[in-house]
């Protein structure tokens, strides 16, 4: 119940933030130089043609009217029509969010699990060679630009070793996967399509690896530091002074206590990972949300930019909300 109240309160707090994002984006795209209409008209179009096109997209209205229309649309779940493709933004977005979300969720989940495992391992061997090695490797991974790392992984994993499928698309089209959510693994499960699942998984390996390598270090550092803090805490000393066995210590006294700070960091990492998918998507021909948003921005496809920023922001704040709830579940001291 308390959790629900907390979530409710936080959701209320999100309203001004999202509204701010909406207003800011709306103004920003319109302040930016660049004409959204010209690129759909062809070179021979006259000013009258341009005006007609503007009318079609309601861009001839006053800013206030445009904004109200946009808001009214948002309330009914209508994000407008893409200027570039003429399709409803909602439909396009639905196809794009799934894959990117799947990629990031899988990558961050793996990174978090790996960080927990390695972090605890490392902390229990603090200041020994293994600990140092793990940390330095994580730092090196964290220092490589993702797009470069992705390319190197493709070169090695696809071109040289031939272990992974060609970096084009997210699933082999021959598997006839019916898109439902857009997240290929999920769709494959929903439609009980075994080959599609295998193919989607194979396509996921390298991009996930790229992201995991990129974000592991901060998570690892956090887990290790917290674990060390716990290991050196009086509470842990008390437990081991009372002769509790190793397994009990690890499970009951170290693990959960060491993870309390992880959720908010994981949320932050999730946020940056979503941001950096735009690069990874490019390298792996992923055609996800980031590429879609970037293209929308480059062509000043107002509805697309507005929708994508809003969704980015929504993801971001929701992930933080989830992190706070998880934090509260992990740490009984947190009052929510």
């Amino acid at each position, binding site marked *: 119940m308390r959790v629900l109240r907390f979530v409710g*309160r936080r959701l209320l707090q999100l309203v001004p933030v999202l509204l701010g994002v909406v207003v800011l984006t709306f103004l920003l795209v319109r302040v930016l130089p660049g004409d959204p209409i010209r690129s759909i008209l062809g070179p021979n179009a006259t000013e009258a043609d341009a005006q007609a096109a503007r009318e079609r997209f309601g861009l001839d209205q006053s800013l206030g009217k445009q904004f109200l229309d946009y808001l009214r649309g948002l309330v009914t779940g209508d994000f407008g029509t893409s200027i570039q493709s003429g399709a409803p933004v909602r439909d396009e977005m639905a196809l794009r969010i799934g894959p990117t979300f799947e990629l990031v969720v899988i990558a961050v989940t793996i990174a978090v699990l790996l960080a927990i495992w390695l972090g605890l391992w490392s902390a229990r061997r603090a200041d020994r060679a293994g600990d140092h090695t793990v940390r330095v490797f994580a730092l090196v991974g964290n220092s490589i630009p993702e797009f470069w790392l992705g390319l190197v992984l493709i070169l090695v994993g696809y071109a040289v070793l031939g272990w992974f499928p060609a970096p084009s698309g997210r699933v082999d089209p021959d598997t006839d996967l019916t898109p439902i959510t857009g997240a290929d693994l999920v769709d494959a499960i929903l439609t009980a399509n075994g080959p599609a699942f295998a193919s989607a998984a194979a396509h996921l390996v390298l991009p996930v690896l790229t992201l995991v390598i990129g974000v592991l270090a901060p998570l690892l550092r956090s887990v290790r530091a917290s674990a060390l803090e716990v290991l050196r*805490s*009086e*509470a*842990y*000393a*008390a*437990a*081991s*002074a*009372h*002769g*509790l*066995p190793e397994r*009990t210590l690890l499970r*009951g*006294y170290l693990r*959960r*206590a060491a993870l*309390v700070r992880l959720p908010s960091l994981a949320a932050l990492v999730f946020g940056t990972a979503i941001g950096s998918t735009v690069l990874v998507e490019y390298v792996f021909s992923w055609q996800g949300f980031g590429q879609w948003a970037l293209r929308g921005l480059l062509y000043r496809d107002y509805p697309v930019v507005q929708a994508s920023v809003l969704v980015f922001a929504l993801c971001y704040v929701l992930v933080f909300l989830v992190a706070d709830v998880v934090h509260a579940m*992990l*740490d*009984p*001291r947190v009052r929510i």
Partner: protein
Amino acid sequence: MLDISDLSVVIRRPGRQVAALSNVSFAVAPGEVVGLVGESGGGKSMVARAIVGMLPPGSRASGRVGFDGADVLRMDDAALAAHRGRGAAICFQNPRGALSPTRTAGRQLIDRLVTHQQMGAEQAATAAKDLFAAVGIRNPGQRLRAYPHELSGGMAQRVMISLATGCAPGLLIADEPTTGLDVTLSREILRQFRHAADTDGRGVLLISHDLASIAEVCDRVVVLYAGTVVESGPAAKVLRDPAHPYTRALLRSVPDVGGGKVTATAGGMPLLTDPPHDCPFAPRCAHATGECRTTRPPVKAMADGWSLACYHPQHDPLLCLPAGAGEGGFPAGAPESASPVGRAKRADEVVLRADESASPVSRAKRADEVVLRVEDAHVVYRSRFGSGGHHALRGVSLELSKGETLGVVGESGCGKSTLAKLIMGLVEPTQGTVAVGGKDVRRLSRAERTRAQMVFQDPIGSLSPRRTIKDSIAEPLRAAKVSTTQRAQRVERALDRMELDRSILDRLPHELSGGQAQRIGIARALVGEPDLIVFDEPTSALDVTVQAQILDVIADVANDAGHGSVFISHDLATVRGFADRVVVLYLGRVVEEGPVGEVFDHPRHPYTRALLGSAPRLGGARTADVTLVKDLDEADAAAGCALAARCPFVTDACRSQEQTLQPYGESRAACWRVPEIPALIGKSATHD
């Protein structure tokens, strides 16, 4: 059972080395309670750690920690695992910190039961409930599911004890189990240990910095100083007729509710890098001779297992012990030593000199100059979300004149600090008024604010970590727009008064000891020559001997006729020394008020009686004529008398009627049953 002989521990870290223990020897037998006392850093915890084989990294230990025939220092991992918990189990110093924050108290206890008593899960759960009940936790079933942060300090300490006893150890080690607890509670907790020794036949090692508080329960006492055992022997002997000058100094530093005189011993405990080759106490010792400074006195065994390491054992009786101690009850009439005139300082042990200007005459109350007037003040701490809040003060009225010192006492959480903040204008009264120097504190200008100054409980924490000492002291002058040169002069004058070296001016707070930092805090309060100084538990974070030194300084400052003082403490004894009047707070209300001698010697309110009764008294039994039931945090104060939930004399009238202060003799108390209470006490005594 436990037999430590010649244990030395040196901790080596790059760049520093600490000789934490040097040739420590003592033993604990089953069923025996041994007290290990000494000041902070004396090595008490180190002994405890050595017993469970958990010395800090980088330690080198020599000697022997014999436990049931085996040597803990030489145990292999398997033997250690069996020894820890089952052999010896520690109750840690800071119970909140020593309980794992993310596991319920019950799970933690069950873990121990399962490990050491080979219980199954269900059996452990019932056993856990019983154990909780055994240490005095009410509603154990519910508390088993509580997380440590949901427990009060006293409750956490009880849980800690249950965890240690849950291991069913041969030896129970309690590291400072009562530090930070209320007097009423400490007594109760200490009884738990005596109980463990008496009923279960466990050996108990009770560690404390405070001799007085453990005096009552120990069979034998070991006194540690700078990692060496200076004196050990039967509790009665060591506490009543200590022979080692350090033990004596320690005992004299403890304020006593009976009005026993506090005598400060100059200096602080040295931090040894190597095992000492001389007497470590020699630099502070009044009786030290050349011999003490060159060779380390050997441990001399005396009668009844009494032994001490001193070339010059003292045998004259401790001056500060009040005459009536030991017979029970309070001495009639204020002892002579409580009056300022009687507080003569012994030249050999006293560092602080009184300010020349302070004379007894100037302490006379000048009613015409009221510096502080609090009228019916209420403070409610609003919670950020939701409704309600914490009603920390509920209608407090005070008045203070120039030259007067007002003592404020009460348990932890009763609103003492809130009162201090209220006076300083740091919290807004939700109702009522506070006037300093005749002006509402909320309407004071920056310069006028400095007319009231405060000395804080946390001496180091109240100094800005990144500003030099000079800066900190000068802060009030800066607000009062004093010129730079004048500022420097006045800062130095204040510093001189605190007997501190000028070299300290350019240091940062973390480079100071607690005692030094508190002197700086007092200097800061004094520098602007304020009309009012509020001391909020200025000594409770300090070591015993340092506490005595600071109390001396404060007594001196309070004597000053230039300003009024409010002295806040949870410990009645510290107030007795220099307050003119005393106010007893309970749950945000004044329950008793009156001249200091009157309140202490003829307490009227049941709460005051209970408080005085549970205060630790050296060398004598306490007069527990009133015992409160339940912990403070379990008491609710909805309507009626605040104490109703805990008062043994409660009636329905108490529960329904708000109590107001009524004059009884020279003092006033908020209890309608005051006249009947002596009789009621007699009745309950006969029932026992």
